[in-house]
């Protein structure tokens, strides 16, 4: 057996093993634990990149049968174009987040560093597992692994986070349970849990009540986990109150992976066109997404706390991804998936920058950003680049996902999509320039919280700056991603 064939399992496995090992290692050798964390995530990232390279080169998906059992009896891991791509995004952003928030963890969570990192690794295990597996029930298991660790991580954010985490747990579990119920309907209709099998059998037997129920429950559940309006109410509190080190890890990738599950349902589970033509699921997604874009953008404008603003902005951006999935054409799907990476990079930068600001000034109020352009030049440069990318200024990343989505909307004559996507740029511009104005065009107040001797540690600002530049590079390279990765995969 050569190494390439093992790549699918090499993505989640090191993370899982390390998550078990880290608390033990940490107990005995405090310093080594962090090295193990980085090694595990690094291995997963390398495996993802390797898998992506292989898939792009050969055009064929990597298939790994767990324990050597062939499906439908055994569980199968399949890494195709889309899975490899999302996996690279998840592990890449995860690695950046873990590196950048190191200082935060050592100052805030020093006494429970081992368990903390174990949870982070479990979160990544769950998310990468969802991406690589081709088994419907296995998705549920990984979903709950990631969700449980996310609840626990949010809970670490102190007093205010406790209630937010509990509510997140309640709503998240409803989402997971609905998904499980939907999978049950698929199983009893088809007798299989393997995605490819289920796809084939469902295509043969045609529409049935069970399939309808399955689609409704799965999409409601995933909508909840993805914070799709009107099922978003857990997100703002959770993101605002979570520890900085957590929301810069969780916010960029968690909801995106849920969006990926939806894409999977469209591509490889339900019969082609079923969710678009037979059931109005796709239309509902589009409408919910559009409402989400308008609501998220408009609500973000009124926020005083930058993290809450970013949380509402996430709701808007997720709405955009949902619109892309719902439109359902290859171009729209590609736009949605492109935005998965773009938004992950942008939100990671923004949350990291916010964390950096909070580290220096102890505040995350927008009013306290006054004069920070001078005070923290590199952090704010990264922040500005990512923020402008979110507005959709070319050539940064956000522009192109919007551009392709508008294009897809025009192809289908979906005028509402075109109008809302364009208008949402103005909403983003409004809340983004509110901060940029504070940072660059207002003086540093003499008695403000920015006037501390504390400086942003290099470990924080270097990743922020690099990720900010990365959003621009991602935009410049988008055609390559689109033609080599997304279009063959859709």
């Amino acid at each position, binding site marked *: 057996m050569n190494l390439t064939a093992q790549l699918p399992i090499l993505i989640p496995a090191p993370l899982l093993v390390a998550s078990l090992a880290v608390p033990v290692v940490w107990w005995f050798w405090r310093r080594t634990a962090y090295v193990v964390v980085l090694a595990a995530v690094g291995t997963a990232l390398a495996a993802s990149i390797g898998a992506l390279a292989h898939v792009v080169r050969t055009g064929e998906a990597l298939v790994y049968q767990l324990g050597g059992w062939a499906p439908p009896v055994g569980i199968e891991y399949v890494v195709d174009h889309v899975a490899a791509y999302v996996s690279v995004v998840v592990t890449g952003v995860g690695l950046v987040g873990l590196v950048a928030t190191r200082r935060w963890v050592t100052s805030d969570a020093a006494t429970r560093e081992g368990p903390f990192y174990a949870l982070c690794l479990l979160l990544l295990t769950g998310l990468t597992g969802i991406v690589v597996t081709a088994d419907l029930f296995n998705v549920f298991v990984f979903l709950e692994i990631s969700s449980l660790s996310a609840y626990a991580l949010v809970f670490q954010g102190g007093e205010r986070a406790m209630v937010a985490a509990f509510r997140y747990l309640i709503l998240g579990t409803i989402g997971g349970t609905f998904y499980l119920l939907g999978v049950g309907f698929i199983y009893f209709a088809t007798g299989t849990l393997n995605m490819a099998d289920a796809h084939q059998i469902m295509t043969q037997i045609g529409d049935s009540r069970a399939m309808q129920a399955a689609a409704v429950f799965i999409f409601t559940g995933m909508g909840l986990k993805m914070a799709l309006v009107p099922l978003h109410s857990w997100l703002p509190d959770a993101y605002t109150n979570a520890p900085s080190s957590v929301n810069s890890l969780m916010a960029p990738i968690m909801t995106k992976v849920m969006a990926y599950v939806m894409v999977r349902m469209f591509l490889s589970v339900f019969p082609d066109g079923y969710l678009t033509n037979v059931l109005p699921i796709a239309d509902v997604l589009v409408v919910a997404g559009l409402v989400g874009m308008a609501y998220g953008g408009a609500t973000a404008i009124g926020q005083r706390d930058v993290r809450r603003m970013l949380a509402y902005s996430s709701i808007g951006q997720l709405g955009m991804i949902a619109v892309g999935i719902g439109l359902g054409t290859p171009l729209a799907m590609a736009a949605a998936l492109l935005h998965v990476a773009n938004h992950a990079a942008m939100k990671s930068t923004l949350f990291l920058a916010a964390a950096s600001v909070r580290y220096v000034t102890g505040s995350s109020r927008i009013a306290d950003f006054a004069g920070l352009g001078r005070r923290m030049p590199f952090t704010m440069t990264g922040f500005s680049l990512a923020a402008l990318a979110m507005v959709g*200024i070319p*050539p940064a990343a956000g522009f192109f996902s919007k551009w392709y989505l508008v294009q897809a909307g*025009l192809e289908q004559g979906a005028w509402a999509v075109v109008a809302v996507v364009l208008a949402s740029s*103005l909403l983003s511009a409004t809340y983004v320039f509110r901060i940029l104005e504070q940072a660059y*065009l*207002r003086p540093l107040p003499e008695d403000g919280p920015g006037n501390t001797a504390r400086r942003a540690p290099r470990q924080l600002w270097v990743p922020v700056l690099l990720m900010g530049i990365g959003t621009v590079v991602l935009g410049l390279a*988008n*055609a390559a991603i*689109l033609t080599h990765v997304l*279009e063959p995969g859709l």
Partner: protein
Amino acid sequence: MSGAVASSLPLVLVGIPVACAVLVALTGERSRNLRDAWPIAAALGAVGVGLALAGPALDGAPRETRLWEFAPGIAVAFRADAAGLVFALLASALWVLAAPYAAGYMRAEGEERQTRFFAAYALSVGAALGVALAGNLLTFVLCYELLSLFTYPLVTHRQTDEALAAGRKYLAYTLSGGLALIAATAWLAALGVDATFTPGGFLADAGLGRGTRWLLFGLLAAGVGVKAAVMPLHSWLPSAMVAPTPVSALLHAVAVVKAGVFGMVRVTAFVFGPALLVGMGASTVLAIFAAVTLLVGSALALRHDNLKRRLAYSTVSHLSYIVLGVALAGPIALMGALLHLAGHGVTKITLFFVAGAIHAHTHKENVSDLDGIGRQMPVTMTAFTLASLSMAGIPPFMLFVSKLYLGWGAADMGRQVFMLVYMVSGVLSAGYLFPIIIRAFFRQPRPAHDEHDGHAEHEPHAPAPERRAWLMVAPLAVTGVLTLVWGLAPDTPFGFLALAEHVAEAVFGVSPVLGGGA
């Protein structure tokens, strides 16, 4: 212009200001003289490259840089064709003069944050050159959006509440305009149209439906119309006057508004093409918008006492000269429009330079305070007089030449009514500028204002002699003389007339003066 030759020079031209911005930022406050010298050197370099590109463009073999594809099938491309070079040469030539002027102004006014200012200034010029040389619509939009972004810190430079409000308004207008363009590019991509600028229009035989054509035209015209300040999209421009004067000069003469009208040239002559434009009736609609703006802008200029605001409305009016010229969709009118683009650039920058020099020298902003200023600042006000004569279209100044072509073009297309509009507006231009000259030279200075007692030292009875501000006075003297020189010999040294003629010939397929005109 099918015979584009691959070359890296167009990219170099766009890259020079960007590199300059980096150097400015790196030099910073360590050596202000070196920092302020970079833009001058860069501008001279840009002029040199522009001149090197002009020859091949006139020979019908424009140089082109194609970078990687940044959307499937659409590359970032910079092509130095004749039309682009008119704008690019104008922008870089005026930058040569604006750079020392800006340095002089910022020092005289003791402005803060000069490094950021000069870096953003250079970046804005770079974006404007990108707009000029963009080879396809998507590259154009890219540079157009970046231009909005880079000029934002210039508009808000003073960081007062008023400046911030103006900045918000500016962004709201220009970003909305950008969105209209983005929608249009996405639509063209969705239709599968290759949006490479083509003389005579790439939509000319794309065979689109009537509704699609009109909507596309609406989006594109509105998108570039924002920066071209076509009414009712103009109101950001007078508000943006809170910026320091070198910025106003940049916004209103070199970069932003010219990018808008140049975009109009691209949209009409290179996207739709004159034949389609006339055929679908868009020509008339655009012409009416432009004519209304032209007259109302001039009339509003008469009402404003603040010198910079008066100049702003004058700009609104004169930009629509150009828009009307391209809307007429005739070869001679197009030539006139391109000449007016260049001529208005040099003329208006002179007027703004003068306004800034007066402010730096005497802290006066209103026309009614300018009695007798000609004696304090003879060189400055002489330049102002030259530029005003040009503005009013007096022969043999530059704007006389362009107005001649514009009026001729209107008559050539059988639309004498627009010729009349040009003439009326010419009279109005004289009406809002000549009184300033009269005040400056033929009235006695009024005694210093009593209400300014608090800082009487700023109202000196005998201000420092003009020559001490040579960094500002020399550039404006040069541009003032240029309004006359380019009127007498439009081809020296940049060949604006030849380039404009070349464009008209390429777009219409006939030599304008020999074939279409007479």
